[in-house]
């Protein structure tokens, strides 16, 4: 709980550490990606988008998994903290899904010759993005905040269960059509340096996500404090 901005609570200390860690990590990632890893021969320089692309989608899926778990917990035992947790992770998940979609489109242009191919993974990711954007919008439509939180949790559960079904259905739908030429980068024949960089990027992005989530949750906590202060007006 933040009583005053001057209090140097351990929480602020952890936040600062995470923030600085994420920033340094991101700069380190740039060095690894642009200097350390070799140039991929077939795709050229643009293949280097792969590292942030994979780290973003990993974060997005991890975020939505956390939203799913928190939503179930909320429905079993409603609490403001659980809702804040779910909401913050959903927002960060949407941010990273956005990065995934945009980086994927930019990568796709020189490789596939088009920004967007209706391939199974792209389509699923776009639908995922749409579902969680609606999740985030939902409470603002409700007059009763408690109902808004509860309904968001319902969508948090359905949205996540829906993802694999959507993916399967889109995949099978696309089996009728020519597959886009996707360079199989995730094969085991990836050079070790590329693998290290991928793992490093995933770790750094996760730290970044945790930092952003804590910031996001802090806003809601401060808002709750504000509401409490106002309701006990003298």
């Amino acid at each position, binding site marked *: 709980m933040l009583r005053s901005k001057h209090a140097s609570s351990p929480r602020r200390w952890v936040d600062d550490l995470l923030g600085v860690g994420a920033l340094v990590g991101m700069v380190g990632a740039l060095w690894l990606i642009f200097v350390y890893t070799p140039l991929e021969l077939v795709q050229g320089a643009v293949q280097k988008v792969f590292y942030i692309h994979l780290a973003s989608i990993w974060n997005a899926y991890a975020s939505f998994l956390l939203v799913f778990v928190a939503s179930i917990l909320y429905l079993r035992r409603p609490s403001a903290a659980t809702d804040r947790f779910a909401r913050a992770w959903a927002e960060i998940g949407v941010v990273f899904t956005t990065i995934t979609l945009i980086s994927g489109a930019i990568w796709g242009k020189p490789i596939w010759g088009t920004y967007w191919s209706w391939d199974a993974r792209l389509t699923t990711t776009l639908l995922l993005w749409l579902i969680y954007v609606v999740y985030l919008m939902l409470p603002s439509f409700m007059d009763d905040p408690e109902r808004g939180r509860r309904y968001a949790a319902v969508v948090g559960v359905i949205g996540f269960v*829906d993802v694999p079904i959507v993916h399967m259905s889109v995949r099978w739908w696309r089996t009728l059509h020519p597959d886009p030429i996707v360079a199989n980068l995730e094969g085991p024949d990836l050079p070790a340096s590329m693998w290290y960089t991928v793992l490093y990027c995933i770790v750094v992005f996760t730290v970044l996500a945790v930092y952003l989530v804590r910031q996001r949750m802090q806003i809601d906590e401060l808002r709750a404090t504000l509401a409490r202060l106002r309701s006990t007006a003298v």
Partner: protein
Amino acid sequence: MMPAARQVLTVVRKDLLVETRARDLLNVMLTFAVLSLVIFNLALDLRGPVVREVGPGLLWLTIAFAAILGMGRTFVREHERGTLTGLLIAPMDRGVLFVGKLLANLIFLFVMEAVTLPMFAVLFGLPVLQPAVLLITALGTLGFATLGTLFSAMAAQSRAREALLPLLLLPTTVPVLIGSVQATSHVLDDTVGGPPWIGLLLAFNVIFLTLAFLLFEHVVDG
């Protein structure tokens, strides 16, 4: 008869009774469905062999949009007349209420389709009035109605009312839409192969029914 089944029937009968008096749901849904078939054809200028390719997609878009229009009404109607509170006070399980509402929605949708399918067959010249397509229609409709019943209860409580329903229903029911369109295409043109869509539709329905049944109490309570 089991008491639960009797309660379900009461809920269904109530909805049908309200509809026979108000007539603001079926008429709107039916007119809208026929109208969209016409509008789609005008907008896309459908002639020749392309009809066979895009026909199933048009049919299912029409059904999906008409379903959203209709299902949005059922709970908003309860909300406007304050009858939802009555239903919730009534001594019955939330599951009973869900099944009753779902069945009522299904009946409305099937009536809409009973008009839309023949109209589609005539206007687009595609043989959709055959047992396989009817089975697919039943399965696809069940998928839309299941999540539609859950989400329309949510939408009715919102400031946006039924305008919220498509935002919730369209992205989540994508598997049902794809499954229904593909299954219909395969029946109409058996040269194309593909996975067993009818079985998949069945599986989607089982998953959605379980989810909606479990979550419904969280949507109507409070």
